[in-house]
């Protein structure tokens, strides 16, 4: 069972099924329009049932893949196959169908018709309709089943048919194969077997008998005999025959004589019986009767003999290419064709062999193969090299990571120094510091790190050295090229190579030794650190150079390879051209000699002179005795003479016979000889796969040998190739012949013919021009040998060799790559380990330092500590970044699909950015209307990208604006065609059914821009390397703006991970625009069920419906106290509605103002933390008493916003202290009556924030006691309290105020110790404002509060705003 036929058979089947399904579809569409759902359901059932998947291929053709059908047909195959054996299977299958065929086929349709009529049914008929529907669906199922059965049936039928066809074909094929085999080895066709037929020779041996019908010994008899003999003598057919034969043979020999062909016949002992075109120096007797081995010595002889013997044994004709290396003719390759020879008894009696010299062909082929190999290898190498380059880049990146780690360790190194220093310098050691210092893990860890660092240093140094040696390699390598390239590269490297490589290392070592430095050495240390930093920068630079270098190296190698390849290709082309014409043997020019000796040799025999007839003359009188006597006498005489003549004649005859015999002997011998040779020749040639021909100068055939069997001679002779054949190769061969004719040089070529007549065959064609005596070209001889199988074999071999070579090359390259990868992996592993190793002690350090920071420290200590913490945090962050990046790189990072609102994301990103904005910048967001309200994507990553780009933009923008622009675009070019990146689809959770949208997001700024070209710097262009890791536009930028250069790399990777593209356009001093295009799925609005998207919730929380569609946001820097009047607190939190100005610098300054401690990092931390929530009241309180200070600090902060926090700190500290003093003096006395600890804490904190302090009473009794003892300006009274609640307590206080005594209180059971003078004192006070704090429950209504003598009330929970309002009202 062959695959193709079943495929062919499947095609109609497929169409059949397609048609069937279409019918079903149509049927559904028409009948059940009103019951769409039901139908859809049924259809799903149906489609599920038969596993039919329709899908549209790229050509918009509908294709049906039917997996089940395939399975079924295969099953069927088995069944049908077995039916070949027992006969009942066919009927069995039939039976099965009949049995299982569902009944009621036509009925179903009828009922469906009925159902259709009822589609207009009203509501009352709904149940009925439902019934009908159910019925319908069951009928549908039936139908479906039936269809399937029919289909099965049809499939079976088809299958069976296919079976039969296949079998027939197989049989035919088998037969064909047999025939082919037969033809190959000619065993079956006795008529075709080369049998040495001696009748061929015998025919010429027959002597013709002279038949004379006259009476013996009469004159007539003799006369007749003489005549006939004469005739016989005269008309020997030998010559004519010979001539004819000679003509053909002449051509044959003529063609063969110069053809590079050797032919021979060997007996079964492989002794030569005949050889044609033997090696010129060998005489015939040297060859005949001998074997190959006896004649030749050298390589290949044995092989050829073995091959011949093999053929003889196997009895199958075969071809083989054998290369001979003999002393006689050097190294020559022959394509040898050997066929066994049988005698009539069908016994093997020897072999015919024919060899064609193909040395040059083989050589050419070898060269080609080698070239191809080389090419393939080169290509493979190239690709591998590219890989290697990539890997190397990766490796270099990892090295960079190491470097960063090294930097990190350097920081770690600094940290303890700070601590150490501080500890030494300050006499008073805080206990926390002690912990830090004496923490065993800490002190143990440090040396370890130190050691590690040293190791790293050593390792780095080593690597540097190796890199340097690599550089040396380049120098050597580049010398192969025009010198200027190498030197140029060299110069570049030399010029830009940072100096002081080894020195750097030394100095770092020195720095390391100084860890125990005391305070006096602080400046020194700082110096060292600076030095270290610069050295680090140097190191980093050097690393970059190294990397560049390596990459350059690899690139160069690549270039070389490419060039070599190109050269090789060029060479190949040349070789091909050259080899097309390779004959250099002009002396061998075959000249068609029409007066050749062959023709001359056999000359017309000269006719022997015949004896003239004599007249009998009688001179006597007629009819006398004398007359008669005389007559008789004369007659007698005549008779005598006649007899004499006869005798003579007989003698002559004998003589002539003798001469004839003697004459015919050489002819016969010659003929025989010729015949023998020719016999051998023909015998050898007749079965050999050789075609020979002679064509005139118009390329018309004059002679052809071994033509294609179906062509008659007259079909060929006088015609050209093109006239005879059609198809591929014919034209080529004709052209080739013509070329040979024109160039006059014999040549060989392999041409593949693709003709209708004999299919695809490859011939090795040898063509030589033919000259006449005047040395004019009169035509060509051509000889073709069929080498199809050889060529095929050879192609296969070449391919194999090629593959092998490629594989080898790949292997070696792969080994290299593997080596590098392993190294990289090891580096990665080490990186991870080191990261971890560093992280744990570092977090210890940072953690301890943070604990330390919560204790009381003086300004200097705090400052140092902050530096320490921030440095530590930076290192931690760095490590995290590195890990983050490697996560993206290794593809571990997974994207998740969540629903989100792009507008809100943009808004929040801008808000966040605005909150931490330190510059006078306008942030704006612009979203076009067509951007969907909700889309699905990985909002977290998108935010990350946006935030990163925005913060980048802000970092490099000093004035103007930074913004985000969103708009919908059509499918971009990089994604078109594939509709959506499959990966991204998967990652984003998109499926094909859902609509997706491409959104282009521009993050633009008016900043310094990115230089497209840089002249002086090492990098030619900054833009291309912008997205590379650790790359910044330039070293200057790195110094000025900080950062690791990882951000954009991560952004790019993330965008690409999501199936998008990140690009950048920039103009120096005008700004840059980063654009990323991402596909999103458009969220369907109906399912909100599991929507837990947070940005979405913001909207629910904030009752602003237009926020979802708002397309423009702006956040402007706030200057002055525009916002000082204080809106609702909530208005300034992070959920700020759009278009509300989000303050940037001033708010932060307020934070500083109220900051009583002199810390920077910590305060900023809090601000960032609070970012949006920064309370407005602080601003108020501050701006109230000291507006001037605020502006002052504002300007200072703006001035120093970039320079770092340290400078501005001092000023701020001053201002805040001054303020603090002022507020101290005007402190009113407040009593808080509250039982709830939490409430107390909160209230206390609020008061503190507002600049007040208060006393606390836990219940009414305590409150009364307190009031009795101290005069308060305000009482905040909780209503609901144990022991004595707020209302009662208030009543008692009021009664005291009125009566001047605490009687009421005492009555109420409050134990109050009263001293009289105190009482008097208190009495003088005014009405004490008592403010209730109510939870607004039923029991604590405001009316009740007022009724009980309270002045006001604050509803719980107390907010700062309320408290402030309240205090303002009652304290001023």
């Amino acid at each position: 069972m062959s695959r193709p036929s079943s495929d062919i058979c499947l095609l109609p089947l497929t169409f059949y099924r397609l048609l069937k399904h279409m019918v079903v579809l149509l049927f559904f569409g028409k009948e059940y329009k009103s019951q769409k759902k039901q139908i859809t359901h049924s259809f799903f059932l149906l489609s599920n049932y038969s596993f039919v998947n329709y899908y549209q291929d790229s050509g918009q053709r509908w294709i049906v893949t039917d997996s089940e059908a395939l399975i079924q047909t295969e099953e069927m195959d088995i069944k049908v196959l077995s039916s070949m054996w027992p006969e009942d299977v066919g009927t069995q299958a039939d039976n099965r169908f009949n049995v299982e065929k569902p009944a009621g086929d036509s009925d179903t349709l009828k009922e469906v018709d009925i159902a259709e009529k009822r589609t207009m049914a009203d509501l009352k008929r709904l149940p009925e309709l439902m019934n009908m529907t159910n019925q319908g669906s069951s009928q549908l199922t039936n139908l479906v089943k039936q269809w399937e059965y029919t289909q099965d049936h049809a499939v079976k039928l088809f299958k069976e048919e296919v079976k039969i066809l296949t079998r027939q074909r197989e049989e035919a094929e088998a037969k064909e194969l047999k025939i082919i085999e037969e033809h190959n080895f000619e065993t079956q066709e006795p008529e075709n077997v080369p049998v040495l037929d001696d009748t061929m020779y015998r025919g010429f041996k027959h002597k013709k008998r002279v038949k004379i019908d006259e009476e013996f010994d009469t004159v007539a008899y003799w006369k007749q005999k003489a005549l006939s003999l004469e005739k016989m003598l005269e008309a020997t057919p030998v010559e004519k025959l010979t001539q004819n034969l000679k003509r053909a043979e002449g051509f044959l020999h003529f063609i063969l004589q110069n053809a590079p062909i050797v032919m021979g016949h060997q007996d079964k002992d492989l002794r030569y019986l005949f050889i044609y075109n033997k090696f010129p120096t060998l005489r015939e007797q040297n060859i005949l009767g001998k074997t190959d081995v006896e004649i030749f010595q050298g390589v290949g002889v044995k092989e050829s003999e073995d091959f011949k013997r093999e053929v003889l044994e196997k009895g199958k004709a075969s071809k083989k290419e054998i290369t001979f290396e003999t002393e006689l003719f050097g190294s020559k390759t022959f394509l040898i064709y050997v066929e066994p020879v049988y005698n009539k008894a069908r016994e093997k009696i020897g072999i015919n062999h024919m060899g064609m010299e193909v040395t040059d062909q083989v050589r050419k082929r070898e060269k080609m193969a080698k070239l191809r190999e080389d090419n393939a290898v080169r290509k493979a190498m190239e690709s591998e090299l590219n890989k290697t380059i990539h890997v190397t880049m990766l490796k270099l990146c990892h090295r960079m990571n190491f470097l960063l780690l090294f930097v990190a360790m350097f920081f770690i190194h600094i940290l303890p120094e700070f601590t150490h220093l501080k500890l030494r310098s300050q006499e008073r050691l805080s206990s926390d510091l002690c912990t830090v210092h004496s923490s065993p893990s800490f002190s143990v860890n440090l040396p370890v790190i130190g050691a590690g660092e040293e190791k790293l240093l050593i390792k780095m140094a080593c690597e540097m050295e190796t890199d340097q040696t690599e550089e040396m390699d380049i120098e050597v390598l580049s010398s192969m090229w025009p010198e200027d390239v190498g030197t140029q590269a060299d110069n570049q490297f030399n010029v830009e190579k940072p100096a002081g490589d080894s020195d750097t290392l030394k100095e770092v070592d020195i720095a390391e030794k100084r860890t125990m430095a005391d305070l006096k050495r602080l400046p020194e240390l700082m110096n060292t650190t600076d030095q270290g930093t610069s050295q680090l920068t140097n190191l980093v630079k050097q690393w970059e150079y190294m990397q560049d270098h390596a990459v350059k190296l690899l690139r160069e190698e690549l270039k070389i390879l490419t060039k070599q390849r190109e050269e090789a290709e060029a060479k190949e082309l040349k070789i091909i051209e050259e080899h097309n014409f390779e004959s250099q043997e002009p002396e061998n020019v075959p000249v068609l000699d029409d007066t050749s000796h062959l023709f001359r040799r056999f000359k017309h025999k000269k006719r022997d002179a015949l004896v003239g007839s004599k007249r009998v003359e009688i001179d006597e009188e007629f009819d006398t005795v004398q007359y008669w006597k005389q007559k008789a006498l004369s007659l007698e005489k005549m008779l005598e003479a006649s007899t004499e003549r006869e005798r003579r004649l007989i003698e002559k005859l004998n003589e002539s016979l003798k001469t004839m015999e003697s004459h015919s002997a050489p002819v016969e011998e010659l003929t025989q000889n010729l015949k023998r040779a020719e016999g051998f020749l023909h015998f050898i040639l007749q079965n050999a796969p050789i075609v020979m021909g002679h064509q005139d100068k118009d390329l018309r055939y004059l002679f052809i040998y071994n033509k294609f069997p179906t062509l008659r001679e007259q079909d060929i002779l006088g015609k050209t190739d093109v006239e005879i054949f059609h198809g591929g190769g014919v034209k080529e061969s004709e052209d080739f012949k013509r070329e040979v004719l024109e160039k006059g040089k014999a040549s060989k070529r392999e041409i593949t013919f693709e003709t209708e007549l004999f299919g695809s065959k490859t011939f090795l064609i040898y063509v030589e021009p033919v000259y006449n005596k005047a040395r004019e070209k009169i035509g060509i001889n051509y000889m073709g040998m069929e080498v199809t199988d050889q060529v095929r074999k050879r192609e296969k071999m070449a391919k194999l060799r090629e593959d092998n070579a490629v594989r080898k090359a790949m292997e070696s390259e792969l080994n290299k790559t593997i080596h590098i990868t392993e190294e990289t992996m090891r580096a990665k592993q080490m990186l991870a380990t080191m990261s971890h190793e560093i992280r744990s002690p570092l977090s210890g350090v940072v953690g301890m330092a943070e604990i330390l920071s919560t204790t009381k420290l003086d300004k200097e200590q705090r400052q140092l500590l902050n530096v320490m913490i921030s440095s530590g945090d930076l290192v931690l962050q760095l490590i995290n970044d590195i890990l983050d990046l490697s996560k993206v790189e290794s593809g571990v990072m997974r994207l998740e699909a969540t629903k989100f609102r792009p507008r809100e994301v943009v808004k929040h990103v801008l808000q966040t950015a605005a909150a931490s904005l330190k510059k006078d910048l306008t942030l704006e967001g612009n979203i076009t209307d067509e951007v969907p309200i909700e889309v699905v994507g990985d909002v977290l990553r998108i935010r990350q990208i946006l935030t990163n780009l925005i913060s980048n933009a802000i970092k490099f923008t000093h004035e103007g604006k930074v913004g985000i622009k969103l708009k919908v675009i059509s499918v971009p070019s990089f994604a078109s065609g594939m509709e959506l990146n499959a990966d991204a689809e998967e990652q984003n959770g998109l499926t094909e059914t859902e609509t997706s949208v491409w959104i282009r997001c521009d993050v633009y700024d008016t900043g310094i821009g990115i230089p497209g070209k840089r002249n002086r710097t090492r990098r030619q262009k900054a833009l291309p390397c912008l997205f590379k890791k650790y790359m910044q536009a330039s070293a200057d930028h790195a110094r000025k703006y900080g950062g690791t250069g990882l951000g954009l790399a991560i952004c790019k990777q993330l965008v690409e991970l999501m199936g998008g593209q990140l690009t950048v356009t920039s103009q120096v001093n005008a700004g840059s625009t980063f654009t990323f295009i991402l596909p999103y799925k458009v969220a369907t609005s109906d399912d909100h069920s599991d929507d837990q998207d947070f940005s979405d919730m913001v909207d629910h929380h904030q009752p602003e419906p237009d926020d979802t569609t708002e397309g423009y946001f702006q956040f402007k820097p706030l200057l002055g106290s525009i916002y000082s009047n204080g809106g609702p607190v909530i208005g300034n939190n992070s959920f700020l509605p759009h278009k509300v100005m989000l303050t940037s610098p001033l708010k932060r300054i307020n934070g500083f103002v109220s900051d009583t401690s002199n810390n920077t990092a910590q305060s900023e931390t809090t601000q960032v933390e609070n970012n949006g929530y920064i309370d407005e009241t602080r601003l108020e309180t501050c701006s109230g008493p000291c507006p001037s200070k605020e502006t002052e600090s504002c300007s200072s902060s703006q001035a120093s916003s970039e320079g770092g926090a340290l400078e501005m700190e001092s000023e701020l500290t001053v201002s805040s202290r001054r303020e603090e003093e002022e507020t101290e003096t005007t402190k009113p006395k407040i009593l808080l009556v509250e039982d709830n600890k939490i409430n107390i804490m909160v209230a206390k904190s609020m008061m503190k924030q507002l600049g007040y302090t208060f006393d606390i009473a836990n219940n009414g009794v305590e409150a009364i006691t307190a009031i009795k003892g101290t005069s308060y300006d305000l009482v905040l009274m909780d209503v609901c309290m144990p022991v004595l609640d707020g209302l009662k307590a208030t009543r008692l206080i009021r009664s005291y105020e009125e009566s001047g005594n605490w009687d009421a209180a005492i009555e109420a059971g409050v134990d109050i110790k009263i001293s009289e003078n105190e009482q008097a004192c208190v009495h003088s006070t005014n009405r004490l404002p008592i403010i209730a704090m109510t939870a607004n429950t039923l029991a604590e209504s405001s009316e009740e509060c007022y009724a009980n003598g309270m002045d006001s009330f604050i509803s719980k929970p107390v907010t700062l705003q309320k408290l402030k309002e309240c205090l303002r009202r009652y304290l001023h």
Partner: protein
Amino acid sequence: MLGLGVDRLQADINRLLTSLFHQGVLDEQFLQLQQLQDETSPTFVYDVINIYFDESEKLLRSLRLLLMDREFSDYKKIGLHLNQLVGSSSSIGARRVRNVCVAFRSASELNNRPGCLRGLEIVEHEYHYLKNMMHELFQLEQQRLLAAGVRYPM
């Protein structure tokens, strides 16, 4: 990401908070609480919430004891406890705890024992939920604090 980690953590915090607000677990009072935190009391929110949890734990325990007692009839005490809980919950802005406490309290006022039991259950559930959320929040906050302390000394 350098500096970006802060934003991410901040975004996480904001998101968590937003969700809590959205769910009604917290209300604006919590923001008040956050605003009260400053350099002088950098762990104010944390402290307050911790105390709140300590106190509430105690209250809930005693509430459970009271309600589990078959012979109990001291609805007033329950009411007092609940008052406490309501007060402190509203102070920190634990809106949902507060609301279920109020419901609980009204049940106790009606001397509705099954109602009280159910109320207690709900309160406990809400309380634990809040506690978990707060725990998460503080963890995030702590990470963010670490990240926010990053400075570039170049």
